[in-house]
Each structure stands twice: as C-alpha cells, then as structure tokens.
C-alpha cells in the first residue's frame, strides 16, 4: 500500500469513494436500488452520490429486487454498467432467477457473444439484532454458481480496491459488505489503485496455525491471533478476499507452512464456504497437516432476535482462539 498520501477512511467512505471515482471515470456506470438516491440507503453508504451524478445515474427503484436486478442484466448486456444495491443480503433470494439463471449464464449460453458487466452490492452479517430475515450471510449461494464472481472485502483498503475492480470486470460480480463493518476505519491511499480478484491477502503472518477468515470474520480472527500470541501461539491470518476466483495456492502454502488450519466464515458451515476451503486445503496440503482442518461458521439455526441467543450463533475472538489452542495442543 502506498503510504505517502494515505488517509483514514471508514469502510463506508471507502465504498462511496470507489463508486464516485468509477462514476466519474465511466459515464456508463449507474446505480439502481431502493432508497439509493436522496436517502443514500439506510446505511448512508451512498450519501452525496445523487447530488453529484443526478437521478439519471443514481436511480431509486420500487421495492422490486427481482425486477431491478433483471433490468440491470439487460442494461449491462446493452452498454451500461449497472450496480444494483440489495439492501440486506437476505433479499438476494428474491433475485435468484435473474442472477443464477440469467446473469450468470448469458455469456456461456450465447457462446461468448453477450456479456453482463454488472455488480450486485449487498450485505451480510449478524449481531445487529435484526432477526432471521435481515442477518444472514448467504454468499456461499452465489459462490456455487459458475459465471458469477463473489467478493468479500474486510478492510476499507480492500473494499475500495476490490469494488473498483468489480465495476471494471466484464462479468456479473456480487460484492458482499459486512453491515457491522461500515464504521471500521483504515488507511486508504489517495492515489488510484485496484486490487485483482483471486489474490488472498496475508493479514497477519504467523508460524503455528493458519486462520483463514473472510469478511466479518477477519477482524475476529485478528483479535483471536492477539489472544493466541499471549499464550505463545503464532497465528497467520489469511483473507481470500474473493470466494470465486479463489486463491488456492496461497491457502495451501500457508497450510503447509503452519500444518494447522482453522477456516472461519460467517455463513453456515454446512455445504458452505468453510467446507469448500477446508476441502481445498485437505486436498492440497494433506500430508503436511498435523491436525484435521477445523471449520467455524454461523450456528445451523435461523438467526434469533434475542441478543443473548444471537450472540451464540456467530464465532467470536474467544471461540476462535479456543479452537486454535485445542488444535495446537494435539500431537
């Protein structure tokens, strides 16, 4: 990261900056979604964009997720570069046909002739006391589908660089933002930069155990690594940043180096992102592992409302550190 002109921005500011820079660079980039204009979304991530770019490019839609996502698919095929805003990740279920049967398949089904350069921005993450229909982390669903790319930024720096790459990509890209992270601060260069997809980032180097963490769980993993350091365990934290394309090489190399791996992701573990990553590591580093790969994710229940119950469903610094200690105490 070039340090010279770096400023401290929140995650939300970094997103907004990526959007406004790309909208200035390319007049075909536009935003569609519910309350994206004057309201700037409930999370205020888009505040100020309609004032700069006008209602012509920041389009408030009715509450019709499938409808405006489908419109974005057609608009992307015919010359625009739409970014759709799906307020809560739980609402992606309403867009499934348009994303899975249309956006993801148009390029392949047409023998490579039509392209769908669109971005879907949406959210993930629990512990906001929003209950079962506003708290899920469903990024595994899209990661399962050939034709889609899936991005999970975990810092303001990554958010800006990855979103700019997403907007310039010629394919449908789904960009998941942890809604609890919008106020997280971090250094972001003032200079133009992008971050390529499929390149994992080592968030913290270590020797004894690898913690592969995504999105909201990266901060949890870093906190766990601090706790572990106090008990003499050196943890490496790796963020794949995109679940597809997936940087298998970096994950496998780290696993070979440390010989112990925990994979932590806020989605459900069953048939989820942690299952895929654990399998990649097991296949690629089996003979170098000293313990089975441990997976941690959301508890396999709908997210409950009651705060003490909700807090039980998500991995924490303490639970991740505890699991790491258990792995490291094995022979």
């Amino acid at each position: 990261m070039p340090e010279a002109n770096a400023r401290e921005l929140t995650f939300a500011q970094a997103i907004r900056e990526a959007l406004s820079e790309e909208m200035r660079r390319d007049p075909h980039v536009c935003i569609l979604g519910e309350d994206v204009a004057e309201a700037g979304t409930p999370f205020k991530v888009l505040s100020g964009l309609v004032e700069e770019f006008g209602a012509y490019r920041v389009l408030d839609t009715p509450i019709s997720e499938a409808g405006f996502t489908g419109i974005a698919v057609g608009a992307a095929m015919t010359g625009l570069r739409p970014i759709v805003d799906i307020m809560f990740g739980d609402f992606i279920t309403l867009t499934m046909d348009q994303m899975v049967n249309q956006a993801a398949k148009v390029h392949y089904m047409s023998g490579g002739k039509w392209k769908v350069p669109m971005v879907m921005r949406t959210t993930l993450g629990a512990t906001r006391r929003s209950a079962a229909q506003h708290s899920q982390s469903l990024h595994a669903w899209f990661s399962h589908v050939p034709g889609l790319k899936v991005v999970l930024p975990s810092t303001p720096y990554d958010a800006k660089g990855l979103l700019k790459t997403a907007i310039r990509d010629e394919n449908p890209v789904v960009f998941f933002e942890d809604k609890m992270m919008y106020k997280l601060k971090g250094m972001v260069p003032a200079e133009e930069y992008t971050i390529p997809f499929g390149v994992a980032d080592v968030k913290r180097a270590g020797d004894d155990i690898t913690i592969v963490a995504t999105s909201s769980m990266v901060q949890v993993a870093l906190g766990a690594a601090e706790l572990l350091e106090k008990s003499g365990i050196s943890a490496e934290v790796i963020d794949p940043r995109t679940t597809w394309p997936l940087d298998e090489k970096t994950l496998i190399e780290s696993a070979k180096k440390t010989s112990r791996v925990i994979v932590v992701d806020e989605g459900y573990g069953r048939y989820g992102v942690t299952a895929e990553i654990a399998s990649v590591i097991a296949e690629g580093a089996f003979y170098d592992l000293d313990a089975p790969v441990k997976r941690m994710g959301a508890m396999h229940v709908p997210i409950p409302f009651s705060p003490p119950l909700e807090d039980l469903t998500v991995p924490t610094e303490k639970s991740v550190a505890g699991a790491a200690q258990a792995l490291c105490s094995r022979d």
Partner: protein
Amino acid sequence: MTIAADHRETNSAVQVEQWLRVYRQMVSIRLFEEQVNELYTRALMPGLAHLYIGEEAVAVGICEALRPDDYITSTHRGHGHCLAKGATPDRMFAELLGKEAGYCRGKGGSMHIADPATGNLGANAIVAGSVGIATGAALSAKRLGTDRVAVCFFGEGALGQGLLYEVMNLAQLWKLPVIYVCENNLYNEYTHYTETTAGDIPARATAFGILAETVDGQDVRNVFATAKRLVDRGRCGEGPAFLVCNTYRYHGHHVGDINREYYRPKTEEQHWKADRDPIKLLADWLKRENLVEAEALDRIHAEVASEMEAAVKFALAAPYPKPEEVQEDVYA
C-alpha cells in the same frame, strides 16, 4: 397519369414487395419448424423442441416493424422470433443440433438462441425470465440516446410470473421504449389459460397506466400495423406498450406432446388450421386484391423449401464443438 397517381403506384409496388417479404418470412418459419419436427422425430435433434407453427404472423408482423438494431427477447418457443429478427436457418439448425457453427457455438440450443448482430438478446427457457432483460435494454436505449426499441415476446403463461409486473411498473415510471408482446396461444403448456388467468389480460398493463391493445395474431397485416404504431410511439419517447396477440399453437407444447385430447379437442385444432391460418390468410388477401399471382407464392414456397433443405444438410454435416470448448465462455 398524374404525379399523385404515379406516387400511389410506387407506394403500392413497395407495399407488395413488403407483403411478399412478410409472406416469405412466415413460410420460412413454417418450413423451418417442419424440418425441426422431422429432425426431432428422426432422433437427429437432442433435447426439447417447442414448435411455433401457427403463430408465425406474430413474430413476423412485429419484427417487420423493427429496425435491425432494435432488440428482442424470446422464449422457449423462440425459433420464429429469431428467424423473423434476421437469423439465418443454417446457423439456427446448427445450434439446434449442438454444432460449433450454431449461433451460440452449440452451447445454447433450441431454447437459447442469441445473436448480437440481429439485436437478439436471447431466447429464454425460464417463463418470463427475459422480461427484465428486455426492459433493461430499453433503459440502455433511453440512457444512451440510441432511439432503439426493445420488444419482449412472451406467452400468456408468463402472465403468472410476478417479475413481469415489477418491470412493467418500472418501464412505465421511467417511460422506457419497450413493447411487451403477449402471444396468447390459449395454452400454458397443457392447461387452458382461462384456468390460470383471472380477469382481463390487457387490464394487467393498463393498471400501470401502460397503453394496451389486442390484435388478431393470425392477421399479419393487422399485427404489423399495430406494432408499427406502438414501436414508433416508443421510439419517440412515449413509453412502453402492451400488445396481446391472439394466436394458436398447432402442435403440442413440445414435439412428443401427441395425445392432446385431454386438454383440447381436435375440432379446435382443425378450425384454426383450416380457417385461421396466418399464411393462408395473407395469401388469400394478396390474391383477392390482385397483388400477386398464385404462381409467385408457389415459387416462394419452393425456394424456401430448398433453402431449408440446404440449411439442414449444412447443420447435419457441421462438426461438434471441440471438447476443450466446454470450459470456454464461462467468464468474459
């Protein structure tokens, strides 16, 4: 002869030429589909085949009102739309047979023909799956100032899908140049539409303030005249329109849907074929008005028939895609 009369003469010659082009296009679709039926029943065509026979006047009448750079989206019963928008039969057949020379290099097949060169955004095997795409193309046209129009073809079965109402609402709010063409061939697969469709069909569009009209979908002149008006209107920025074309599917839902008596009587099929055939209706009119000799129409049939035979031969001989192509085009 006065200048005015001379002008009328030229005009009518142009019109005759147009109706002969329209006639040829309808015959092309009819004979294309007869070849598909043949290929399928001889087990030379894999997959599914949904024939458009009987509905030719809708695709041809609408596409006659479009420019080459206007957009269409189509359906699982889409061969007619693709041909009417300018696809050639040889590459269509090649696609239907899964060959490399097909419009989608064999990766799409019968239900997914797409072709940027003719503005075909793609046939779609999800009922109402393309209504968003067509509306999005209209948004692009408006935003980019291209004055293109998008036509969204769908069967009356698509009236059951909520997506249609979401995008019609948006199209009217944003005054988008999109024409929703509802081909009412009376049957949602094997079920009469009155068993699935409450109320009045055009009222579903007028509820949004969208101009809705209904035409006899077997009368290509009427379909064309109405489409022309609605397309011109959309091109001028007056917003979307909804056009119900009443038509009939001569064959089953797909080739192989042979025993249809449980959902529709043979007498009904016979009535449409004998009295309501779109090709025959146009031929009768052309002859009645003394615009063309019967021999000219016969000649068109013969020319199209040999064109179709050559196209089938081309497709049958064409090579399949190479194995390494299976992983190409997943990402752009």
